[in-house]
């Protein structure tokens, strides 16, 4: 029987960790784009799109990410598409991220004082100009800290992709456990690697938040 040293375990987990990072980045960037599109639609046409976007957000925030992954995985098969865990996981996580980011950013836009909208109205700025020159820059400053904070949720969310067979850190942990029979060591290593990924991001988000609060006072 092959003996697995601690280094073998850590090395294989690190290799799989690349896919956790890759999937997180895809979901975060993709979710950011979709979320921004949703937010702009909602701001431009509050009467028509407001309800739809609110329903979309409620749907993704009120259901388990695991179910969303299953639906993406099996739904794609139903449409006759070639289902790869990669694509299903990226799709589900992108939509999930977009709903949360849309809601976070909406809060940031709402935090910009109403007077700013009225002032830019009185300057006869178009909708695009208002966002580009007045509201956007102010909302962006407020949005940075919570957006970075949400990245942690995305990284942790990718762990669920293991359930539909996407081989990332958690799935690699399960596979290595089945080969080594050392669940305690392996899952402790997996947890520490997630911690090593997420903790710096959390700390960064907290620092941004503190700095912003100082500037405001």
């Amino acid at each position, binding site marked *: 029987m092959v003996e697995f040293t601690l280094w073998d375990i850590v090395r294989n987990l690190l290799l799989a960790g690349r896919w956790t990072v890759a999937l997180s980045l895809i979901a975060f960037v993709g979710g950011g784009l979709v979320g921004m599109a949703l937010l702009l639609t909602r701001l431009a046409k509050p009467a028509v799109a407001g309800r739809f976007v609110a329903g979309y957000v*409620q*749907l993704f925030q*009120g*259901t*388990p*990410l*695991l*179910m*969303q992954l*299953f*639906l993406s995985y*099996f*739904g794609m*098969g*139903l449409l006759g598409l070639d289902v790869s865990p990669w694509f299903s996981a990226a799709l589900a996580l992108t939509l999930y991220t977009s709903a949360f980011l849309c809601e976070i950013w909406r809060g940031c836009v709402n935090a910009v004082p109403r007077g700013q909208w009225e002032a830019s109205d009185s300057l006869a700025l178009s909708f695009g100009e208002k966002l580009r020159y007045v509201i956007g820059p102010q909302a962006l400053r407020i949005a940075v800290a919570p957006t970075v904070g949400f990245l*942690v949720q995305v990284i*942790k*969310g990718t*762990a*669920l992709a*293991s*359930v539909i067979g996407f081989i990332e850190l*958690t799935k690699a*942990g*399960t596979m290595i*456990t089945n080969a080594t029979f*050392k*669940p*305690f060591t*392996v*899952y*402790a290593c*997996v*947890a520490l690697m*997630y*911690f090593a990924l*997420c*903790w710096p991001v*959390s700390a960064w988000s907290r620092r941004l938040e503190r700095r912003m609060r100082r500037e405001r006072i």
Partner: protein
Amino acid sequence: MLDFGAVLVDWPLLLRGAAFTLGLTAIAAILGVALGVACGWARAWGPKPLAWVVATYVELIRNTPFIVQLFFVFFGLPSLGLRLSPEVASIIAMVLNLGAYAAEISRAGIEGTPRGQFEAARSLALNEFQVFTRVVLPPALGRVWPALVSQIIIVMLGSAVCGQIATQELSYYANLIQSRNFRAFESFIVATLVYLAMAVAIRHLLNWIGPRWIYGRDPLGGRAAAGH
């Protein structure tokens, strides 16, 4: 084509799963919030070493995925001689998870207590425990109640993962149904909608319970006096 009938025929299984999920959530919510409040107290006012231990626990939990915490408890702890049933492992993981988030939330509430309230409470000769449980905690919980409710719902939704270690909750039964009739998409759609309904129901329920029994009953009967 989609065939929801094939899934809905098994409604007793879905009902049993949903009830189990609600049960898990109820236990985890009570124990988790209690753990969170204790940890929030330790971080705000506790002795330094204890505050440090709690901070480490909170950071460890908040920066690792729930599924890894669950696998660690269920698969990892038996090698230390601690063999757990899937249900107990699920509850332990959910309580530890909620506890960490609730600690941060309740700490924010506790730290928002105005100084004058302590001084008033001390001048009434209340001891430390009474000051905390009667003067500080109820309004602190009131301040952070919406955040706490959201976190409980997140933990309820997260419990879908517990089906992966064969805890017989809703997602476990959705999986069981689809393995029998091969209607995977329909089965998970139904389960997802049940989760959504439960999330909405829990939010309404807790928003109703909170001001009545959790943080509204202040010792002076202020709410009654204010004519609520």
